[in-house]
């Protein structure tokens, strides 16, 4: 029974993972990940990690993925264009991943640990239950628990700093004047040296009006 469940769940998890990678539309990628996470939760359950499984479904597949969906919706979940660079990576990347997988499997299965071929340690009552986990979090792992809370706070601050709405801006026409690094010509920026993408102000004539225009725009914007 558990074997069947294992196979179903793991095939689901792998399929979800592949879906995340292969699907062109980010929206479907997110949905695919949700599927993957739920299958993973099933695997957790098989491994007697009840609390982890629950957290996985509730917090992860639930809350975090919703955030994803919102962002995808915000920036538009269009299909990504065919990339002009990194063509080689499209082929080589998966091959590498495959090689790495083989390597990891050799490492995991080649170990001398006997437990690897067993079904795990004898089941102890309460293993993986919220109560046990909670107790650990308040005793042995009190410090990580507290730090994790700080970490979440940091992430929240970070999100605020990065994505906070700037007041008075029309939503779609936000065009912040950036403070450009106007470099005189031939100062040897790498972009210039590479000749691929001339940076700002490589042409002084072109950059001059832009500079002059910058304060004017800001004052007229009436922010």
């Amino acid at each position, binding site marked *: 029974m558990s074997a069947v469940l*294992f196979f179903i769940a*793991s095939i689901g*998890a*792998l399929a979800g*993972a*592949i879906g*995340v*990678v292969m699907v062109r539309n980010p929206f479907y*990628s*997110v949905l695919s*990940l949700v599927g*993957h996470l739920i299958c993973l939760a099933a*695997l*957790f359950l098989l*491994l007697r*990690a009840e*609390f*982890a499984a629950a957290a996985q479904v509730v917090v992860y597949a639930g809350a*975090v993925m919703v*955030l*994803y969906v919102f*962002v*995808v919706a*915000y*920036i538009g979940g269009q299909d*990504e*264009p065919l*990339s002009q660079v*990194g063509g080689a*990576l499209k082929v080589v*990347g*998966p091959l590498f*991943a495959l090689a*790495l997988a083989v390597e*990891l*499997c050799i490492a*995991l*299965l080649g170990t001398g*640990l006997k*437990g*690897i*071929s*067993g079904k795990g*340690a004898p089941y102890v009552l309460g293993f*993986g239950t919220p109560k046990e*986990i909670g107790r*650990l979090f308040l005793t042995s*792992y009190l410090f990580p628990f507290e730090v994790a809370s700080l*970490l*979440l706070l940091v*992430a929240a601050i*970070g999100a*605020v*700093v*990065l*994505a906070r709405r700037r007041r008075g801006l029309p939503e779609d026409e*936000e065009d912040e004047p950036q403070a450009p690094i106007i470099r005189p010509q031939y100062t040897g920026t790498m*972009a210039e040296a590479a000749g691929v*993408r001339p*940076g700002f102000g490589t042409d002084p004539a072109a950059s001059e009006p832009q500079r002059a225009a910058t304060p004017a725009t800001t004052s007229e914007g009436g922010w």
Partner: protein
Amino acid sequence: MPIGWYLVVSALIFCIGAAGVLTRPNPLVILLCLELMLNAANLALVAFSRMWGNQAGQIFALVVMVVAACEVTVGLGLIVAIYRRHLAINVDELNELRG
């Protein structure tokens, strides 16, 4: 099922995630792939936890979930900021810094 099988699955998920990071130019999807890699680690942790009969692995897995959430939050915040700056949501076009 022997623990080894779980570990193999986790290794495969890890590598699928890695392949995704390498092949997808959309930062959103890259973040998703990173989630995959972290989840692979979670699976391994939970499996080991079961193997040793030791709940530290589960604690670790929960911590990793927290971390994953934090990374996602910040990552999405960055993507939004980039979007607001009207820059392409494409890591292949963010290469002013190089050399």
